[in-house]
């Protein structure tokens, strides 16, 4: 499964759709204007005329309609853009954390964590929707602000494999760029829906008030038509036009949505290599009395984000944002006998970690392939593991983490201790200065950070990265003021030792980049730069850092720079020995704003650079992983491209 291609396809569909929409909007605005014009005519002359065509009136109306639709669309767009969290909260979702006692929630979180580690991203926050139906959704703009919602019914009735199937399906939506696509679609259709809503409002208001009964009285202006009737006709007309426009808009939207759903189902199968999981989940939905209907009224607006149809629709077949259950099941499981699975009492079994994986000690369970030095070729071979292997490997990695640390990552405060201890660890020998600083500024935490540091001492780098990823969702659970304090401590700690190691820097960037976005300190990057020359200064800085931490021989350095110049096709690439944290972050910020092919090129060259001394060590691999995260190319989406 190549997510990169899937995303590009999603983007081009969006452009295509925008064009279709604009055409549709043009036609819509024309009809509304014609309607209004006729009403206007009626108001003044008490007749409908189809010969006179007052171009001025028509034009002004036309432009007004376009304005309104755009305004409404932007409004909807901005509302949804608040990130997945906004959607979850508006549906009465409650955040689930590892600390809850419920066994079934633990299993759910384990499933989400595995899937996230396997994909190379940090686990999205999981929200529980208080609904007895079986459904799930993924919302958000990018991996960083993605959020997964799941109904209580789903958690109660599905077993582990089925949950895994549903979650894999949602992850596929995230990686296929469906959320972004849907965001644009929603915005567009909303504008048209809005106008229809105005019409409906007018009609209802007239019905409710008794103004209708006054309609029989003639208006002041004997020559013109009755204003009440005019208003009524306008409302009716808008309603009908709005209805037609929405009809077509929703129809197009639904057709596209259905295709994306099939795609997500297929991706999920590839992810888990276990089609029965998803098939069974779908079969259970079929049997569930509530099916997949979501109670909260907002479910309608967000219908397209869900796993199965959120609303029981009269227009089921036509407008449904999801393909028919039966069709979906058959695509996955052709031998299905047509019978849905009734509710059964679920037996909760979660493999006891250490027993299942036979770990020898809590440190050395990382598969040997990655702990011994590798030649670069081997890396590409590993990267081609099929999805299921990734999941199994993720499970192993998760089980290898000491239980206490894993639990610590689930609480906001202790997650901070983990991050700060990792920063202490970055230099292998904690600097006295850092310790002093922590003592003075984070007094409540200093002892805890020390204890955490001791626990982490022998862990492999891969565990460090996993801990970071696992801590991220908890770190989002603080107030802005609290984040400011934490952020300053992190930055101070790194700048303190005057030298920035690449690991330190990656760590800080991995933690702060999504958090900055979460708390509104920065915005999601746009793809601005498509030519490599535009970012050559930033590249100089980035590669200088990579080189600096690996090599010190001047000749070697110059040679590497020359090689890079050739591979990147750049005329200018300068080696900068002294780089400040500020400059580095600026460089990364710029590189993140380049197009995907460009970022992939940068990652490839970084890997090459790190391996140019003949072998890739454990440390190097983790730095590569970190770079993947920093460049918004979570490792598995990169892997699939190789």
């Amino acid at each position, binding site marked *: 499964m190549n997510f990169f291609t899937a995303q590009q396809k999603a983007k081009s569909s969006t452009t295509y759709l925008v064009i279709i929409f604009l055409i549709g909007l043009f036609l819509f605005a024309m009809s509304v204007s014609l309607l209004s014009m006729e009403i206007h005519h009626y108001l003044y002359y008490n007749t409908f005329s189809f010969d006179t065509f007052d171009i001025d009136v028509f034009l002004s109306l036309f*432009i007004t309609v376009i304005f309104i639709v755009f305004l409404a669309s932007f409004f909807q767009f901005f509302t949804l853009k608040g990130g997945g969290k*906004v959607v979850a909260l*508006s549906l009465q979702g409650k955040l689930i*954390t590892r*600390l809850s006692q419920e066994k079934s929630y633990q299993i759910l979180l384990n499933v989400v964590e595995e899937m996230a580690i396997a994909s190379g991203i940090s686990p999205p926050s999981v929200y529980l929707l208080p609904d007895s139906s079986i459904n799930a959704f993924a919302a958000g703009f990018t991996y960083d602000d993605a959020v997964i919602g799941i109904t209580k019914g789903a958690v109660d009735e599905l077993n582990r494999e089925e949950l895994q199937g549903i979650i894999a399906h949602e992850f596929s939506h995230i990686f296929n760029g469906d959320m972004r696509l849907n965001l644009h679609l929603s915005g567009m259709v909303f504008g048209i829906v809005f106008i229809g809503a105005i019409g409906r409002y007018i009609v209802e208001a007239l019905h409710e008030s008794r103004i209708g009964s006054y309609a029989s009285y003639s208006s002041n202006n004997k020559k013109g038509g009755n204003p009440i009737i005019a208003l009524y006709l306008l409302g009716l007309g808008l309603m009908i036009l709005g209805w037609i426009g929405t009809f077509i808009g929703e129809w197009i939207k639904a057709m596209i949505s259905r295709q994306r759903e099939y795609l997500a189902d297929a991706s999920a199968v590839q992810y888990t290599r276990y089609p029965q999981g998803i098939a069974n989940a779908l079969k259970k939905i079929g049997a569930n009395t509530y099916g997949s209907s979501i109670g909260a009224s907002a479910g309608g607006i967000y219908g397209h984000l869900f796993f199965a149809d959120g609303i029981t629709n009269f227009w089921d077949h036509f407008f449904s944002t999801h393909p028919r259950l039966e069709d979906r099941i058959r695509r996955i499981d052709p031998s299905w006998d047509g019978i849905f699975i009734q509710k059964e009492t679920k037996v909760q079994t979660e493999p006891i970690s250490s027993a299942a994986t036979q770990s020898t000690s809590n440190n050395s369970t990382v598969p040997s392939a990655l702990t011994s030095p590798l030649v670069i070729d081997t890396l590409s071979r590993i990267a081609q593991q099929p999805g299921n292997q990734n999941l199994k490997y993720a499970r192993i990695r998760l089980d290898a983490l000491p239980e206490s640390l894993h639990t610590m990552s689930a609480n906001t*405060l202790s997650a901070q201790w983990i991050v700060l201890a990792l920063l202490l660890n970055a230099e292998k020998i904690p600097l006295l200065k850092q310790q002093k600083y922590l003592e003075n500024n984070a007094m409540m935490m200093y002892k805890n950070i020390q204890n955490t540091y001791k626990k982490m001492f022998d862990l492999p780098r891969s565990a460090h990265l996993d801990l970071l990823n696992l801590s991220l969702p908890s770190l989002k659970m603080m*107030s802005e003021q609290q984040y400011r304090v934490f952020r300053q401590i992190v930055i101070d700690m790194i700048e303190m030792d005057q030298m920035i190691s690449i690991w330190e820097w990656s760590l800080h960037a991995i933690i702060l980049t999504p958090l900055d976005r979460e708390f509104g300190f920065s915005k999601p990057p746009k793809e601005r730069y498509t030519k490599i020359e535009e970012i050559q200064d930033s590249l100089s800085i980035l590669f200088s850092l990579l080189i600096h931490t690996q090599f010190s021989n001047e000749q070697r350095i110059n040679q590497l720079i020359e090689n890079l110049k050739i591979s990147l096709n750049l005329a200018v690439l300068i080696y900068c020995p002294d780089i400040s944290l500020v400059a580095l972050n600026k460089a990364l910020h710029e590189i993140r704003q380049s197009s995907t092919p460009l970022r992939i090129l940068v990652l490839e060259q970084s890997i090459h650079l790190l391996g140019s001394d003949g072998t890739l060590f454990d440390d190097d691999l983790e730095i590569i992983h970190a770079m993947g995260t920093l460049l918004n190319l979570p490792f598995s989406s990169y892997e699939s491209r190789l």
Partner: protein
Amino acid sequence: MEKYIVAILFFGILFYIVSIFNRLVYTKNRYINSFSQIGVQLKRRYDLIPSLVEVAKQYMEHEKSTLERVIAARNGASKHLSEANSNPSDPTIIRQISEAENNLRRAISQFSMVMEDYPLIKADTTMQNLQEELSTTENKIAFARQFYNDSVMEYNIYRQSFPQTLLASLFGHANDAAMIEFDDAKEIQNPPKMVF
């Protein structure tokens, strides 16, 4: 020309009003959600206390009344917690939980004072582990409480500002949310530890 301006103004204001409504809902749900962070830690604390009392009983057979007071305070607080979990937006319930917590803290500090008279208890490893856990939990409660109060403040400030305040009651947000006040507000840097 004026027609355009009127139309744009009209719809602009309309959307602005809708966004106010949405933001009220959002900030409210946010603070409700942040309550669960405290709730979880408080529950942990309440679960640790009975073990604490069990260990203490072995050494302090004659201090029954102090121990009983701790258990009673703990039970009271635990009950209020389950109420609060199901309805975190009710200010009276929040105030109740603050009170119950303060009650518990007083009982525990009395308990620690009494413990001073029994030096043997310090050597007990179970007691030491419990103390460590309780101390960590205290830190987490303090942090989560700060988060909750910050979220509540965000909601209250937004609700009270102009022009939202004119519409707030109309939209069903008639009251401020209550912050959680613990007695030790001043000594928040030194959460009540078992003083040995």
